[in-house]
């Protein structure tokens, strides 16, 4: 049994090593990849097929963007409102709502609730976990019907957030 414990410790130390190494030369890799895409996109052959529109790589700093899936949402008074687990778009691709996993303790009693995307505020800086604020409180959100596939979406918002989305005009 002691052998197995030793092996587990060894595997763990190996994993930490590789994780540290892979982060180091990321910038270089990115630069070479950008050159590569430019090289392949230069039109050389004359064919009947219309050339695909040129691919443009845009680099955004990680301070300026974030992946919202799994991020914590707080109310304006600082209450924990749960995590964003899904994003809902309309037919034209405009983001309409975020689905948050609300409430509960140790996986018991949590409810999936859709909130208006416009009722969410994204702080530009600060710690990643506190960047998203919802204009609603727990009290306002608690009784919302649960978000389910194949059902009409009921999303909660505030009077200010209820502006029509640009696509529906």
């Amino acid at each position, binding site marked *: *049994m002691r052998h*197995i414990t030793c092996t587990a410790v060894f595997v763990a130390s190996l994993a930490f090593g590789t994780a540290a190494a892979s982060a180091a030369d990321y910038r270089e890799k990115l630069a070479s990849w950008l050159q590569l895409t430019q090289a392949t996109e230069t039109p050389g052959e004359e064919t009947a097929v219309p050339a695909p529109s040129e691919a443009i790589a845009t680099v955004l700093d990680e301070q300026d963007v974030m992946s919202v899936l799994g991020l914590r949402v707080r109310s304006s008074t600082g209450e924990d409102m749960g995590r964003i687990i899904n994003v809902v778009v309309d037919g034209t691709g405009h983001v309409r709502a975020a689905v948050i996993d609300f409430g509960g303790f140790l*996986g018991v009693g949590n*409810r999936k609730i859709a909130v208006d995307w416009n009722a969410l505020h994204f702080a530009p800086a600060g710690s990643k976990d506190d960047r998203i604020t919802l204009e609603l409180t727990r009290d306002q959100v608690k009784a919302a019907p649960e978000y389910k596939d194949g059902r009409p979406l009921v999303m909660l918002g505030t009077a200010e957030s209820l502006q029509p989305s640009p696509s529906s005009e």
Partner: protein
Amino acid sequence: MPLQPSRRSQRGLDWFVFFVATVLTGFGPFVAVYLTSQHWTQLDIGLVLSIGGIASLLGQMPSGALVDAARSERVVAGLAIVATGASALALGLWPVSPVVQVASVVQAFAGCILGPAIAAISLGLVGHDGMGERLGRNARFASLGTGAGAAAMGASGYLIEDRAVFFVAAAFLIPALLALRLIEEKEVDPERAHGGVEGEPCLHHRAAPMATVIRHRTLLIFAGCVLLFQLANAAMLPLLGSILTMRSSQWATALIAVCVIVPQLIVALVSPWIGRSAQRIGRRPLLLLGIAVVSLRGILFASLSNPFLLVAVQLLDGIAAAVFTVLTPFIISDITRGTGRFNLSLGFVGTATGIGASLSTTLAGYASDHFGSPVAFLALAAIATAGVALVWSLMPETRPGTAKLSPPLTSAERIRQS
């Protein structure tokens, strides 16, 4: 004549049960939260949980057979807990799909082995006569271990980060192995551990045929009771939690926490008493009590609306949980006495448990979506009432010395059937 278990071995088993429960707490709800924080979609998380669920359902009987075939329950239990710890570590280190899938399947199989292995060590250590007392202790320590694990992992997830949960879970592997070492190998009689006949050093191939054991009438009836219990019970807490979240904002989280934690404490408190009472007055009255409590709970949940009263009713869950945690291995050890198939039968009833629990949430979810939660609770109460009827009408008392039990498989019968 097997040795009497020493205090040291008994203590070792106490703490092994405790730390196994602690490590296993690291899975379950924490996996979904962690993968969500790792930007996993709900679809992928659902897939991982379903695969794990199916693996732990299918793994029950093979694991039971494996434990029955083992010559050292300690080594089997040790390997299973190491595999569990390793999958916790893998989950924490590499949250990528193939690793997570494999880790959850490995954890599911290891979990299937740990239950029967602990039951086997218990039976091998104390024999049938001390089993009630021993299982009461097991339930107490498992419940305390789950509580301690949830507290430690909840705190580390909150204070450090979500993946810290899995490193904490893996770290509890070390005290688990140390506790396992305290159990004296020579005190765990391998024949007794599998429900074999004492003093008859039967080789493994002389154990009763698998099919005969599983078709044993009392075992089938008991599996039916367990299935109905799970079908009625498993969905009640999730449904209640959802209602509490809906009705009360300020107190919701605290109330749900009480609903989860306090029944665990009740299990820790009453299990030893239940084990001793089952030895003294018999299994049947307690089994009736355990399942009747579920029926009562369903009816009360359907008729009450005050959140604080609902929480009070939920405390009854502790009694039902204690009864079934202690009595399930106890009754099976009665039924399989002399067959050498104790753990296979545990796996068989474990499969019934898994099926009942997974159908329960589906059924209750459907009922509450379409007809409202009171109807869902009444439906669950009706199922529990059917369980009471089944125990009342068909389930015999399995305590040795009571005539009602259909005769256990004797050596003569085994020879005739083979």
